[in-house]
């Protein structure tokens, strides 16, 4: 027709517009919202806690690149899922995990937990939790180090407690005495002889052991925490992995995840709700001398349950991982309730003090079954 150059139009099939969201945006937002919790953990545990974080993220990214090259696929670290796995793996590791252990975990998480199944979207189990389970079984002493927060670094928590009318040091002492298992006290020359690091059993381990000695030397159940102890647990006064100490930060991160429509509110609410309800209602076992006794019904320390262990991390970041959870809303609610039940079961009656990791892994296994049961009804079909 005319001498102008031919303009080429795109002839792809409809729809010709797309929603602005993308997998990369979802993953990077999740990673971003995990950062406050990890920063809080750095604050509590000191700068040394950066080691497992950096090591696990680096190992995950490297493994993903190598596996993609091996499988002749384009490198997929750009979609952000390996970064999220690395950060989550760090969140479930203790602060003094050696760099090589975190790296091994990262390689396992991505290499076996994700790429061996076919890459993003094909894995059955949450890779970070799978790696944690692997590390717990193969390196139990490293994973159970249960380091306590650095008292000096957490001094502003102490001031806050003071302002609230409590006494952080006093509560800490009480908690320590209840634990009865302060195993290591290491002294740091930089702190001119002050206590640098304390290790001891976490609140859940104490609940498991459940035996304590009060000031008068009487054996009492360790399950009647008062408000100070609960806030103490929530704000990271207790030991645990990097994610466990930041329950408050994780709730904030989780809130923004829901607000940005990255996850839906169903799973966290149903998961936490089930844990809270069962944690309140069920009788908790505790050891009285040589025998086990049970507290009564409706006497459980549900707030302590909510604030301890990786429950917040699990409810907002692990159990909401899209790949390993059911497809439909109804299915996800069933999944969340199942996770809650398993968590309480494991915490109360099973050999491990921490139930969230295995509860979620167990429910991941049930996901195909849940999917088959909760298929939506097709419009117009009986």
């Amino acid at each position, binding site marked *: 027709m005319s001498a102008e150059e031919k303009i080429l139009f795109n002839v792809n099939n409809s729809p010709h*517009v797309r*929603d602005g969201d993308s997998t990369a945006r979802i993953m990077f937002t999740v990673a971003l919202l995990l950062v406050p919790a990890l920063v809080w953990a750095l604050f509590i545990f000191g700068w040394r806690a950066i080691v497992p974080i950096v090591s696990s993220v680096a190992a995950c990214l490297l493994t993903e690149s190598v596996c993609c090259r091996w499988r002749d696929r384009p490198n997929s670290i750009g979609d952000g899922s390996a970064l999220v796995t690395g950060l989550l793996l760090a969140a479930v590791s203790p602060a003094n995990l050696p760099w090589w252990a975190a790296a091994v975990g990262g390689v396992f998480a991505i290499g076996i937990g994700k790429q061996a199944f076919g890459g*993003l979207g094909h894995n059955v189990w949450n890779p970070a939790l799978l790696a944690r389970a692997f590390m717990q079984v193969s390196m139990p002493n490293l994973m159970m180090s249960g380091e306590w927060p650095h008292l000096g670094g957490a001094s502003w928590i102490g001031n806050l407690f003071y302002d609230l009318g409590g006494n952080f040091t006093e509560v800490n002492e009480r908690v320590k005495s209840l634990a009865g298992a302060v195993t290591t006290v290491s002294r740091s020359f930089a702190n001119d002889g002050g206590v640098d690091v304390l290790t001891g059993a976490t609140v859940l381990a104490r609940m498991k052991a459940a035996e304590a000695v009060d000031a008068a030397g009487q054996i009492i159940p360790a399950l009647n925490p008062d408000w100070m102890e609960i806030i103490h647990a929530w704000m990271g006064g207790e030991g645990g992995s990097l994610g466990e100490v930041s329950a408050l930060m994780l709730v904030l991160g989780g809130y923004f995840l829901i607000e940005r429509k990255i996850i839906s509110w169903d799973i966290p609410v149903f998961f936490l709700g089930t844990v809270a309800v069962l944690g309140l209602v069920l009788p908790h076992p505790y050891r009285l001398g040589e025998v086990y006794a049970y507290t009564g019904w409706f006497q459980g320390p549900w707030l302590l349950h909510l604030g301890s262990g990786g429950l917040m991390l699990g409810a907002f970041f692990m159990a909401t991982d899209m790949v390993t959870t059911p497809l439909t809303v109804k299915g996800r609610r069933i999944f969340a309730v199942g996770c809650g039940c398993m968590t309480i079961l494991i915490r109360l009656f099973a050999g491990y003090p921490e139930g969230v990791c295995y509860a979620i892994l167990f429910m991941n296994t049930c996901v195909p079954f849940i999917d088959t049961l909760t298929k939506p009804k097709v*419009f117009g079909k009986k």
Partner: protein
Amino acid sequence: MKELFRGGCHPPEKKDATADSPLRPAKAPPFVAVSFSQHIGKPSSPLVKIGERVLRGQKIAESQGFVSAPAHASVSGVAKGVVQLRHPLGFLVDALKIENDGKDEWHPDAVIEHDLDQLAAGDIRKLVQEAGIVGMGGATFPTHVKLSPPKDKSIDVLVLNGAECEPYLTADDRLMIEHPREILRGAALFAKAVGASRIVAGIENNKPGARQAMLEAARELGCGVEIFPLPVKYPQGAEKQLIYSILGRTVPSGGLPMDVGVLVHNMASLYAGYDACRFGHPLTERVVTVTGPGMGNPANLWVRIGTMASHLLEECGFDAGATKKLVVGGPMMGMPMRDLEWATSKGGNGILALTDPVAYEHGPCIRCGRCIEACPLGLLPCALSNYGEAGLLAESIEANALDCIECGCCSYVCPSKRPIVQWVRMEKAEINRLRQLAAAKK
């Protein structure tokens, strides 16, 4: 208000550019190319000799069989020859090229007026068939066939589709604002043709002007048409979803609206029906919304059937350099065109010049479940996409691929940018092709 239909998505409406632009006729084109196949069914066969002078409204092609429609000259002038035009689906169709002599003379057979009260149901159907009216929402199904349901299916409700749920399009909106009386009279005629006792117009809430105009016109005419306000959601205008939202009736899978006693018609078809019955005008022009970020002067135009896109877009300030995609229809279900060498037809209600980059590298399915929430039919689009990618036809039939209405909600919401609906279309095409081969063997 009755329950909303399940699923759906909310693409940004983007109707501001033309929502307040009144309808006006497009500039007279130098020639038109009226295709013989602008409808579902057998192409019509040409009647006119080359070199003959034809008048506007003159029948230039006769329908072949019942499921077919005649074609009429949309301008007066000399018939120059039969050309081959590209149909959006890729094949070539024959069309009659008529040079426009500018006189716009109507053929005497095309201006016979009727008294609407004197017309019986059979007369209405005949007039509609002779006028070559087809479904003008895009489906292009011959309207007289729709108005002749089989004896065992009785229709009690006529639904007027004023949803116009696709972004950018405002053709039906302006038609309702400016010609509500014609539409309502057309609806009364169609209702008479099928014996429907109730007429309901569904209008989305983003068209308050249209709703107001239709309400006033209905009151004025005293015709008892109910105006039903619809929440804004895509694909509200899809037949099954519209019927469910307004009446709560569920069209069975594999069935048609007449199975639940309903008939759905587009506003433009109703206007054309009135025009044909009252004034005897066959279908020679239609409203088209020409818009998009790549269009300098977006407008709602009365376009003669067969106007070449190159002539039409010149008038609207088409920016070829900025445009990445030229779409006939809406952005969710429209057909992309590769150049400007095609003619407008009875079914195209919009022309969009889109400037967004449209090439997406798609990732694997991350099982987020958004497509399942978005699917109006309750299918599992992620599963269908995996079956399509792997070529598993039997599994996709079991997963109800044939129920898909191809609305595109799943592809729209997918964060991995998977071309889900394209895979489903491929599966459906393959299944139908194999079924045809099997049937031919028998």
